[in-house]
C-alpha cells in the first residue's frame, strides 16, 4: 500500500515535471505554429521559445522564472483512501518542491505583501475537486499559473440578448487588451453559463481539457474554431510582434444558464502551458502527461 510519504514524493516530481517539461501536445502545438508562421520576427521568437523548451528539459531547469501560483485539480473516487489527507500532502509537496526544484516563491500576503517563501499560504496551493462515484483511484493535475497570463483572463455577466456573439466579443476584447503582456501565443479556456462563478470554473476546466480537443457538442466545437480564427485575426502574434499565432488553441465548456443572465469566463495560459497529471490507483502511480516519470524510482 502506497503511503503518504510516497504520494508526496510523487507530487514533488509531478510539479518538477510541470515546471521543466512542457506536455508533449503543447510542444507539438508550438512546433506546428513555428512551421506555419510566416512573419520572420514571430518565427525568430518561436524558435527562441522552442530552444528554451529544449534547454529547460536538458538541464532540468524551470522553463520560465515565473513558476506561477500552484493550482491542483483533483478528480478523486469516493473510495480513494487518501481523500482527507490529500490537501495536507499537496501542501507539503509544494513547499518541498519550492526548495528542491527550485520554484520562485510567489505566495504573497494579500494585505502586507509579505512573501511566505514556500509557495503555500491562505488557500494556496489552490485545489479544485471533482468526486467520481464508485471509484477508488484519483487523478491529480498540477497547473503552474504564471502572473502575466492572468492579464488575458476575466469574467462578464451579460444580458442573454447579447447572445453567443456578445460572449465571443468579450473574449476577443480580453485578448486584445492583454496583448503582449500575457506572453502569447496563448491557450484559451472559455466557460459559458449562468453565473460568474460557474463561467470561470468551466473556463479553467476547458483550459485543462487537452490541446486540440473539441467540445462534443457540434455548435460549441465550431465556436471554438471560430473564436480561435478571430483571435489569430487580431494579429498580435508571438509576444506581440505580429503574424498569425496569437493563440494555439481555444476550448469551451458550457453549463445551462439562468433565464436572465449569460456569463462568460476566460482563463488563459501563456505559451508556457505548464501542467502535469498523475493517477494513483491502489499502490500504483502512473504519470499520464509526462510518461518518462514512470521509469524513474520516485516512490
Amino acid at each position: 500500500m502506497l503511503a503518504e510519504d510516497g504520494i508526496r514524493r510523487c507530487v514533488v516530481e509531478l510539479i518538477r515535471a510541470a515546471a521543466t517539461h512542457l506536455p508533449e501536445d503543447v510542444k507539438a502545438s508550438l512546433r506546428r505554429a513555428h512551421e506555419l508562421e510566416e512573419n520572420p520576427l514571430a518565427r525568430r521568437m518561436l524558435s527562441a521559445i522552442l530552444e528554451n523548451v529544449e534547454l529547460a528539459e536538458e538541464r532540468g531547469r524551470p522553463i520560465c522564472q515565473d513558476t506561477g501560483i500552484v493550482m491542483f485539480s483533483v478528480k478523486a473516487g469516493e473510495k480513494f483512501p487518501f481523500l482527507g489527507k490529500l490537501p495536507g500532502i499537496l501542501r507539503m509537496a509544494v513547499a518541498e518542491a519550492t526548495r528542491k526544484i527550485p520554484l520562485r516563491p510567489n505566495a504573497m500576503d494579500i494585505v502586507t505583501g509579505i512573501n511566505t517563501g514556500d509557495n503555500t499560504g491562505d488557500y494556496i496551493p489552490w485545489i479544485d475537486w471533482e468526486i467520481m462515484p464508485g471509484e477508488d483511484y484519483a487523478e491529480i493535475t498540477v497547473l503552474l499559473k504564471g502572473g502575466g497570463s492572468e492579464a488575458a483572463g476575466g469574467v462578464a455577466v451579460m444580458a442573454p440578448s447579447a447572445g453567443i456573439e456578445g460572449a465571443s466579443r468579450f473574449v476577443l476584447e480580453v485578448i486584445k487588451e492583454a496583448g503582449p503582456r500575457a506572453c502569447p501565443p496563448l491557450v484559451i479556456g472559455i466557460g459559458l453559463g449562468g453565473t460568474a462563478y460557474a463561467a470561470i470554473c468551466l473556463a479553467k476546466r476547458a483550459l485543462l481539457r487537452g490541446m486540440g480537443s473539441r467540445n462534443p457538442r457540434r455548435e460549441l466545437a465550431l465556436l471554438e474554431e471560430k473564436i480561435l480564427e478571430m483571435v489569430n485575426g487580431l494579429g498580435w502574434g508571438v509576444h506581440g510582434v505580429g503574424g498569425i499565432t496569437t493563440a494555439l488553441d481555444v476550448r469551451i465548456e458550457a453549463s445551462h444558464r439562468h433565464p436572465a443572465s449569460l456569463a462568460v469566463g476566460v482563463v488563459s495560459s501563456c505559451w508556457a502551458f505548464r501542467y502535469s497529471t498523475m493517477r494513483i490507483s491502489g499502490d500504483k502511480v502512473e504519470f499520464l502527461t509526462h510518461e518518462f516519470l514512470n521509469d524513474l524510482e520516485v516512490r
Partner: protein
Amino acid sequence: MEYRLRTPIGEQEIRRLRVGDLVIVDGLVVTMRDAGHRRAIEHLRSGGRLPIDFSGLVLYHMGPVVRRAESGWEIVAAGPTTSARLEAYEPELIERTGIRLIVGKGGMGARTAEACMRFGAAYAIYPGGAGALAANAIESVERVEWLDLGIPEAMWVLRVRGFGPLMIAIDPSGRNFYDERRREVEENMRRILEGGGLRR
C-alpha cells in the same frame, strides 16, 4: 538588421538601431525590477551613487530564480518581467545614468521613447518566458546588491555572452513598435467585428 553589441555600448552604436532590429549582447547586464528602480531613483535624486556605474550598460527587467552554489550564486531561470510597470522611473534613470539599452517584455510608453530619443538609448524585448535560455547566456554573477529587497528585486550584475535574441521595440528615433502594433490590432478588431466575423 542584426547586430552584436559589447558593453560598454557607445551612443553612436545605439543611434543606428531601428525598430525590428535583432541584437545579441556580450558584457555586463544589470537587473532591476520595481523596488530596485524606486531605490535607484531615490539614491540619484539625493545626490547618491549607484553601486555600479550604469553608463553604456544594459538594464534588464528581470527577477531570477537562483540557487546558492558553492562558488557563489547560480542563476537558474532569468526571463524578462513586464516593463510597463517601470515606465514611471525609466525616463529619469536614462537621463541620470547614461544606460544605453533597456531589455524587458511587453513594451514601454511615450516618456521612455522620448528619453531614448533625447539621450541615445533603446528598448528591446526578450522573448517572455524564455527563462532557461536567458540563464544559459549568463556566464557569471559579478555582484549582487540590495539583497535586502529580496532575491527577485535585488540588483544582479551579470556577465553575459550571446544574450538574445533581443528585438528593438523603441529606437533612438523615438519610434515605438508596440504603439504601432496596438493601432494595427485595433484596426484588425474593427474589421473582424464589421466583416461578419461577429454579427453584432
